[in-house]
């Protein structure tokens, strides 16, 4: 635990000295926020809440990109080799990157919420505790996903390609940019197999006060299991050496990290109420049906 905290503090300092980090973690999400609010906000606080949820999703999802790139860069530059000589296992090295990432996420989230309140006159953040829990579990789950990407890719080029594919999928198929309810039904069903969907729908409806407790619990359980499996897999296949290549058999471990989302996706497709709920919430936001009396914190 001591090693994890020691590494976390150093990672935080290094991040604060990195201008690129500040741009991608703060400036870019705020840019998205202003862009979406200007285009889709419609002057409605409910829609601003929805957009805040989407922007928070993007901020949280971005964890996997920065984390995987940093880890691969450290490995390629031989920095991890030096750490290998110290009495330090892969666990603290990985856990510190997740913890540092989470700590750095909090101010960004606070700034985004403040901007929504003061600039876009958002009076009600929906359910703030639900938002907090989703951000916490989402951050660790997506950070772990970044660790998996770093573990299975051998070069920075490979890492960037995989990240680009994942990011595009998460961004456009989860409902973080285009509302999930507007997709064709088959695409909505496919999106239920993605971790990003649980985070996006959860945050969007938590920020508008429309999320049910059951939805949030499902989201948190999905993200927690996803985190735990991904962390364990990345710990098992972690590589310190730049020339160490991931063995083919180890790549099968990565499939294990997908299993929780395959199970949740299958469950939601067969028995779940998520899509119906997403449709209903979207209708409420659009003003086509009235909000239930218990809203916003049902």
């Amino acid at each position, binding site marked *: 635990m001591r090693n994890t905290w020691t590494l976390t503090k150093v990672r935080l300092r290094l991040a604060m000295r990195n201008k690129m980090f500040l741009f991608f973690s703060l400036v870019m999400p705020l840019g998205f926020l202003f862009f979406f609010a200007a285009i889709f906000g419609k002057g409605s606080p409910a829609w601003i809440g929805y957009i805040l949820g989407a922007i928070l999703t993007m901020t949280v999802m971005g964890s996997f990109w920065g984390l995987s790139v940093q880890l691969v860069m450290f490995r390629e530059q031989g*920095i991890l080799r030096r750490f290998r000589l110290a009495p330090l296992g892969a666990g603290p090295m990985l856990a510190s990157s997740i913890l540092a990432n989470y700590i750095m996420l909090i101010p960004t989230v606070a700034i985004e919420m403040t901007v929504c309140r003061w600039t876009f006159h958002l009076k009600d953040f929906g359910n703030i505790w639900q938002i907090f829990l989703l951000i916490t579990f989402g951050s660790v789950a997506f950070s772990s996903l970044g660790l998996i990407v770093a573990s299975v890719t051998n070069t920075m080029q490979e890492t960037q390609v995989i990240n680009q594919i994942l990011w595009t999928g998460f961004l456009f198929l989860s409902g973080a940019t285009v509302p999930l309810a507007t997709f064709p039904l088959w695409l909505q069903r496919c999106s239920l197999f993605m971790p990003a969907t649980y985070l996006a729908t959860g945050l969007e409806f938590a920020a508008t006060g429309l999320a049910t407790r059951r939805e949030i619990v499902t989201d948190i359980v999905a993200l927690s299991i996803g985190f735990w499996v991904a962390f364990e897999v990345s710990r098992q296949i972690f590589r310190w050496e730049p020339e160490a290549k991931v063995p083919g058999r180890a790549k099968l471990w990565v499939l294990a990290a997908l299993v929780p989302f395959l199970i949740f996706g299958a469950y939601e497709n067969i028995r779940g109420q998520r899509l119906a709920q997403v449709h209903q919430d979207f209708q409420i936001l659009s003003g086509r049906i009235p909000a239930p009396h218990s809203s916003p914190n049902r």
Partner: protein
Amino acid sequence: MSEPVIQVENLYKSYGAVQALRGVSFAVEQGEVFGLLGPNGAGKTTTIEILEGMRTPDAGRARVCGLDPERSGEKFKETIGAVLQSTSLPDKIRVKEAIDLFANFYRERANTDDLLKRFQLDEKRTAFYNQLSGGQKQRLALAMALVNNPQVVFLDEPTAGLDPQVRREIYDIIEQMRREKKTVLLTTHYIEEAERLCDRVAIIDSGKVIALGSPRELKQRSAGTTRIEVRLARALTDGLLAKLDGVADCREFDGTYVLHSSRPPQTIVALVKQLEAQNNELQSLEMFSPSLEDVFIELTGRRLRE
């Protein structure tokens, strides 16, 4: 007699078709500075990285303070300090932060301020890693290797690529480690480094130890011969130089003839006469007292830095 601090028995290691180690064995006693001397690709780094627990041998046995480097985990890592052939740290970490960071991983810790002073990094304590010169980076790597007051220190080519001034500073640091009775295993391809710093040297070539002993013992193998290096205006092909008075051995490396002579004055007189007779000219002539380089040439027929 106490058990050696480092024991290496019959190590084998291959990388695909390349056999890096082919039965390397040696032992290092407590407080000894032991050198692995050999050309690039001889197997020095593979050997030291097996001893650091960073590589797995295909066969053979390695022990450091009685511990298996690969399986003894944290207990082993608490015991050793190491400088890798090339140390990298994040660009934006400060010198003091780097030492503090690594010190925090160990139970026993040296004082950071003392290390900064000892390694002449005090003025650079707040400098970022990417602002340091090559010599300063290497001094930092050495400081980081000593953050846990290790019993055993591994130094993989600690002075490679550094200018002579910095190299001498690092020699002083290693000599201080000797005075502190630390056991040091260093790899090098610099003859003068091995001769100056090491109590004993294993000369390693193509994955095998080909000679082992103190520098003095090894040089005695060249039994009083002096190395004479000559360059000529025209190449000789008929082995005449090997027949000159006093010459025990003659080899040619890239146009330089290396003669080992037991009677240098007579050899030089004979050489000049021979060249005059052949209408050839002497372009340069240098004489060297016996060194480990001569031992290596005798044993392998090659120069150390080929």
